[in-house]
């Protein structure tokens, strides 16, 4: 659906050249919700804005449905943009138009006939649950309602792709959840491909199928959301995961570490295997559970255990290998990490 190859973008600023994107490669499949997360200034907005060429990359290729969009002329690009909806953190609605007028706006631009437009507006207002607010102005709506208008507006020309730049970042948790549910619903009903940018791991956890983690203009990690949660590779990714899954032990608890401290993460079926008893029986080691938590990501159970393994070095090594073979992610915690868990 969307194929990005070797994308680069520099900004020339008063302080010199700034690399906003550096060798970005991504494949986004049709019908998936693809998340991009990263700290502030990582280049997320720059990245998503290249997908409709609001930002023109210096180098690289962006193919949408096999069409190289960086090669389009102005007119072709405008036509292309009509099939790419976009929603924004600050909604960017026209204050001079009502809900109805705002949703109608992209269709006016595309030259859709009046009757067809009106019908579509009614349908979209129903889809996002705002039919009773049709003649209200944006200033009379809550943040969540404004974003619903934004979504309806973005859908009005039947796009194939919806781009979302921090669409929930100015909303309270409740509105955030309802907007995320709405995004999921429209993906399911309209088979839309959604690319969403966020700096909240919770958003990724709740709606995304796959995620890319960005840092300093680069994608440092990428994969299925559940896999990233179970087995994060990069420190920045771990930091983000920590914001939604709290590994911290209660302060009053005094751990006296005796053996080797490991974190075991597991997902899906493997949650049902009797791990601890196997370890004890097969390898003759002691496994103390210091911490355990089971969570779920979009219906898939997923858990974390922090174990203190006691036994001979070889048997612990063998045991760790065995855990790996079971399809569980193991990570031996360094002293530093064990202090911070």
């Amino acid at each position, binding site marked *: 659906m969307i194929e990005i190859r070797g994308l680069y973008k520099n900004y020339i600023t008063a302080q010199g050249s700034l690399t906003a994107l550096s060798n970005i490669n991504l494949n986004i499949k049709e019908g998936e919700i693809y998340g991009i997360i990263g700290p502030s200034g990582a280049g997320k907005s720059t990245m998503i804005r290249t997908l409709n060429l609001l930002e023109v990359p210096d180098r690289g290729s962006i193919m949408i449905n096999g069409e190289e969009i960086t090669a389009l002329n102005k007119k072709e690009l*405008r036509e292309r*943009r009509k099939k*790419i909806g*976009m929603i*924004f953190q600050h909604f960017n609605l026209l*204050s001079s138009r009502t809900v109805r007028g705002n949703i109608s706006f992209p269709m006016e*631009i595309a030259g859709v006939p009046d009757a067809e437009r009106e019908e579509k507006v009614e349908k979209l207002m129903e889809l996002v649950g705002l039919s009773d607010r049709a003649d209200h102005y*944006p*200033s009379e709506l809550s943040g969540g309602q404004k974003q619903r208008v934004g979504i309806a507006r973005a859908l009005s020309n039947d796009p194939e792709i919806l*781009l979302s730049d921090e669409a929930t970042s100015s909303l309270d948790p409740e509105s955030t959840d309802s907007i995320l549910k709405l995004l999921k619903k429209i993906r399911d009903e309209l088979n839309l491909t959604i690319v969403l940018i966020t700096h909240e791991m919770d958003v990724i956890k709740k709606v995304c199928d796959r995620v890319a983690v960005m840092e300093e203009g680069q994608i440092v990690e990428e994969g299925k959301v559940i896999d990233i949660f179970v087995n994060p590779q990069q420190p920045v990714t771990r930091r983000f995961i920590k914001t939604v899954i709290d590994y911290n032990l209660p302060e009053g608890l005094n751990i006296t570490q005796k053996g080797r401290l490991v974190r075991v993460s597991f997902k899906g079926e493997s949650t049902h295997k009797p791990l601890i008893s196997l370890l004890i029986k097969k390898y003759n080691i002691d496994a103390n559970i210091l911490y355990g938590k089971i969570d779920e990501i979009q219906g898939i159970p997923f858990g974390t255990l922090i174990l203190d393994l006691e036994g001979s070095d070889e048997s612990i090594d063998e045991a760790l290998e065995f855990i790996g073979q079971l399809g569980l992610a193991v990570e031996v915690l360094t002293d530093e990490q064990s202090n911070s868990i």
Partner: protein
Amino acid sequence: MNNLTQYSELIWNGTLETLYMVGVSLFFAVIIGLPLGILIVITRKDHIAPCQFIYRILDTIINIGRSIPFIILMVAIIPFTRKLVGSSIGTTAAIVPLAVAAIPFVGRVVESAMLEISPGVIEAARSMGATPLQIIMKVLLPEALPGLILGITLTAINLIGYSAMAGAIGGGGLGDIAIRYGYQRFRVTVMIATVVVLVLLVDIIQWIGNKIAAYYDHR
């Protein structure tokens, strides 16, 4: 008693002349100043049709236009006025310098009203595939409308002030009456009456402008 009717007719005619001068010059100032203002907005860098060259030229013209004192401008463009309306004195002739003086003012007023629109809204329109013309007609103008109305109101009020100087080229109007009767002939009553009418006029225009702007303002 006779004096009173005579003077009230004088003031009534003066009011009509002032309204005529201000109305017509405002009309032309907006017709030319509005596109000028739009052009200087959209040619800014990062706007919808960036062009440093045009922006610089327009910016300079507007600055020069606004820094010339009206009385000097009026005299300086007499040949142009004569060419345009066939005469350089009279009420109609006064309209030309008034309009010319108001054009750069309207340009700036339009510019500042349009710069208040959040760049995000313009970007949203771009993301939908809107052409620059569509953005001007469907985003810039309607979103800036309340600001434009207040700006035009301000221009009208300034023009009333300028039109007082139009007496210098036989333009007539309230200001002219105030100077001729009040200052030169010491008819204090006439002067006070004129000033009262001017104050009322300014107040009414401001009130109407505020009302219309508020009607269109949904921010």
